[in-house]
Every structure is written in structure tokens, then in C-alpha cells.
């Protein structure tokens, strides 16, 4: 009799806990779901070819006697991609090298110091990074304080510690036996690191890099102080440059309907781009083994 009760109680508890966990998940998903829903609903209406090719229009609200040009955020799209590309090109190799140092070569107190500062930096407010670049450029290159290069550097400074730590973690996950096996074949250490360890860890490293890019893709604060924003198309490194996040910041709070619409469109596009980055990463990594056959 007693046994039977205990068993029933246990099963009941199990079910209750499972239900609670499910409820929490649903609760967590609700805001996410509602964000996505809102962005899609509000932004979809403005996404058309004009949206991608035109630059920002004269602000207006549609009224009885004035027609508003929708305009577009073409320059901001180009700007965001340029900034992302620039910052990644600078930061990812540097961050990766730092990660390799931390995981493979570091010995002694220096390693702990580097790791500690990297962790601290990943937590610093991004506007502080922007401020740092702003101030540095004020001193060194006053002419190009607001420029694409400044924006790129600000984003790079955010990415580097992040990539360093994620790369280090990914490299650490490679079992020591793999390194030993490669060393035992008479391969010099640097080649073991680059050709064997790195390729074993590439999933983790790529994921870390993409996460970093997704993170800074939507950064606004540092760009306020460095990229500056630009109403026109520009790919010059020494000129201010537009960005989608800046468009959202600037346009969403204005009273102009067409600008508001463009802001929602930009938001939708940003979300889709970040999603695209993740999917691309997964897809790229599927291509791991190609056919091998020995003839004869």
C-alpha cells in the first residue's frame, strides 16, 4: 500500500515539474514571439525594391494634400555591411590569435592577466568603446573622427575580446589526445595548432565569430560617436557612414510617418540578416568530408 502511494506521488511530482518547466519556456518565448510578430507586421509593409535602393526621403507624414515618398535605406544597408566587414576583418584574426595564445602557448601569470582583461572587456558598455575610439581619433586623427574607419574600429574593439574568449574555449574543447597524436607523428607544434587543433575546433570558432558579428551588427551607441551617420551613399573610409541601427535610432522617435515606417523596415531587415548569418554558419559546416578514392 505504502509503496503504491510513493510511486504515485513521485509520478505526479514529475508531471508537475515538467508542466512548470514547459510553462516557463512558454513564458520566455512570449516576449520573443511578440517582438518578432510586431517587427514583421510593422516592417513588412515597407519592404519593397524602393526600400533597398533609395536613400532616405524628406521627412513627412501622409496627409490630405501631400504625398510622401517612401524612400529607402539603401545607404544604411551598404553602411552596415561595410562596417561589419571592416570590423570583422580587423577583429576576428586578432581575436583568434589571442585565443590561440591563451589556449596553446600561454604560460604563467601573463595568461591569467590577459584572460581576465578580456572577460572584463566583454562586459564593458559598448558606448564606452565608442567613446574610446572617439577620443583617440580626436587626438590622433581629428579630421576623421566621424568616419567609417572609426566606426569599424569601435566595433572591432568590441569583437576582439569576445572572439578571443570564444576561440580559446573552442580550442580548449579539443582533447589533448588529438594534440599528442599529432605531435607523436613528428609534426612541429605550430603546425599541430594550425592544421589539426584549429580545424578540430573550427565549429566553435566560426560560431563564436558569427555570434560576435551578430552582436555588433545591431550596435547603436558606439556608432553614434564614431560612424556618425550619413544621408547619402558612401563607401569612403574617411567619411561618415550610415548604418541600419542608426536609422532606427534616428527615425523611430520622429513624428514623421514615412521615417517611422523605414525604421520598422530596418528593424525587420536587421533581424533577418542576423538570422541569415546563423543559418549560413550551420550550412557551411555541413561540408566536412569529401569523397576520397584511391585508384589502383
Amino acid at each position, binding site marked *: 500500500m505504502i509503496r503504491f502511494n510513493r510511486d504515485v506521488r513521485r509520478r505526479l511530482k514529475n508531471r508537475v515539474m515538467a508542466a512548470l518547466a514547459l510553462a516557463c519556456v512558454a513564458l520566455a518565448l512570449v516576449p520573443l514571439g511578440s517582438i518578432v510578430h510586431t517587427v514583421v507586421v510593422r516592417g513588412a509593409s515597407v519592404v519593397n525594391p524602393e526600400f533597398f535602393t533609395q536613400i532616405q526621403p524628406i521627412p513627412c507624414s501622409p496627409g490630405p494634400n501631400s504625398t510622401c515618398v517612401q524612400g529607402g535605406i539603401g545607404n544604411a544597408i551598404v553602411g552596415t555591411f561595410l562596417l561589419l566587414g571592416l570590423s570583422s576583418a580587423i577583429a576576428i584574426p586578432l581575436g583568434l590569435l589571442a585565443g590561440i595564445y591563451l589556449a596553446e602557448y600561454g604560460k604563467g601569470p601573463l595568461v591569467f592577466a590577459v584572460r581576465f582583461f578580456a572577460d572584463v572587456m566583454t562586459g564593458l558598455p559598448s558606448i564606452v568603446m565608442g567613446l574610446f575610439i572617439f577620443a583617440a581619433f580626436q587626438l590622433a586623427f581629428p579630421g576623421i573622427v566621424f568616419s567609417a574607419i572609426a566606426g569599424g574600429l569601435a566595433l572591432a574593439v568590441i569583437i576582439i575580446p569576445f572572439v578571443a574568449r570564444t576561440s580559446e574555449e573552442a580550442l580548449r574543447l579539443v582533447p589533448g589526445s588529438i594534440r599528442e597524436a599529432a605531435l607523436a607523428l*613528428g*609534426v612541429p607544434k605550430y603546425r599541430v595548432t594550425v592544421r*589539426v587543433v584549429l580545424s578540430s575546433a573550427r565549429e566553435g570558432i566560426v560560431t563564436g565569430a558569427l555570434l560576435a558579428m551578430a552582436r555588433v551588427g545591431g550596435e547603436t551607441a558606439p556608432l553614434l560617436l564614431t560612424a556618425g551617420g550619413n544621408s547619402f551613399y558612401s563607401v569612403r573610409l574617411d567619411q561618415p557612414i550610415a548604418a541600419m541601427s542608426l536609422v532606427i535610432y534616428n527615425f523611430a522617435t520622429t513624428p514623421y510617418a514615412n521615417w517611422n515606417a523605414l525604421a520598422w523596415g530596418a528593424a525587420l531587415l536587421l533581424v533577418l540578416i542576423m538570422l541569415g548569418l546563423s543559418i549560413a554558419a550551420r550550412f557551411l559546416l555541413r561540408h566536412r*568530408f*569529401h569523397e576520397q578514392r*584511391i*585508384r589502383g
Partner: protein
Amino acid sequence: MTRKLAAEKVSAWYGPKKAIEDISLDFEEHATTAIIGPSGCGKSTLIRCLNRLHETVPKARVEGKVLLDDKDVYADDPVTVRRRVGMVFQKANPFPTMSVYDNVAAALRLNGVRNRGKLDKIVKQSLEQAALWDEVKDYLGKPGVSLSGGQQQRLCIARALAAEPEVLLMDEPCSALDPIATAKIEDLIFDLKTDYTVVIVTHNMQQAARVADTTAFMYLGHLIEVGGTRELFERPREALTESYITGRFG
């Protein structure tokens, strides 16, 4: 008896802890030498000193000489040494991101060999030597880690052989395998000694009895006794050796 490899008064430390002390041991060419002893006696440490792998561990230290063809390996470049003295580990460790072919070809590729014809030839030869060719010849593109445990270990043996070493060190190669896989690898060792010098560390005394020409017994970092396998198992000289091999260790 030609002495291919020899340890001369080798001692090794992990940080402050001394793992092996003053080991002097000869390894005959084209023969199999087994090193037996209880866990922690230092046998793995010893063979890792033979191919200079011990020093890759942080804070590890080695003293003494290891002579390969009568030349001290510690006076030579470690990478060259490791090419001449290959190693197979306790748990099979094929490179996870590489196919069977790539795993075997790794030693050559990583050292700059690109000629596809040469790679093909050596991969086939090594897999044949490791008695694995027939089982994988149609699946060379499969990931190395998709093979069974015994096959993976033979893959690692093929990988080590592809580097064309002169000596092959095996650290308890069968301890994670079932009896059939073990038997295959023991047969392999029997054939390998024609072309290589084999040193095998094993927990399993019966295995040492089956495959080795010479057996050395280690205990607590010291070499207690070494001799022909038959003599050692029929009438060991040291009481400690006798206690260990008859399983009466206190």
C-alpha cells in the same frame, strides 16, 4: 643482438614529483619488448621519454640519455625524433575532422607532401600493414571516428606507420578493446617486428607473454627485472617480480 634503442639512467619528473628513477634498458632491433607493472609504476612515463613526448607536458622534466642508433635523442631536434619513433596510444585517437584517408595521410601531409600518387601508395601500404585495408578500402572518405573501436586503433597504427618510423611505441594499445580486436592487434604486432622495433606497455601479463621477446618489469618508478619473456614467466629472478606476475601483490 643489435641495440636499436636504449634508455640510459633515465629519470623523469612531473613538476616536483619524480615518476621514474635511473632506468637503463635496451630495446633490441626487430624484436618486441614489453614493459609490465602495476598502475602508476611509470611505464607510460618511460616510453613517453623515449619519443620526447613527456617534455610537452607543462613542468615536466627528463634527465639521462635515450640512445637511438647510439645517438642521444635529447641532443637532437624533437620533431625529427618523433618521426623516427612513432607512438600509438591507449585510447584510439583518430583526428575527428578527418576521413580515414586523411588520417593515415596526416603525417605526410602535415609535413608538406602533396604528391597524390605518393600519398595514395603510402596510405594503402600502411592500411595493409595494419590489417585494415580490406575493411576500409571502399570507405576511405568516411570519417575516421565512424569506425569501430578496434578498427580505430588499427587506423591509428596505420597512421603511425605511414610516417615510416623505425621504432613503434605502443601504450596499452588493447586495453579498451574486446578480445577479438585484441587478438587482431596482437597478430599485427607479431608481423610488425619484422620491419620495426616494437615497445609495448601493457597491464595484461598474458599479453606480454604472448607477444614479447623481452619483458621488463617496473615498480614504483624503478626497473626491477628484465629478461627473456620465457625466463621471466617461468622462473623470475626477483621475488617482487614473482609476486607481481603470480598476482600475489600485497
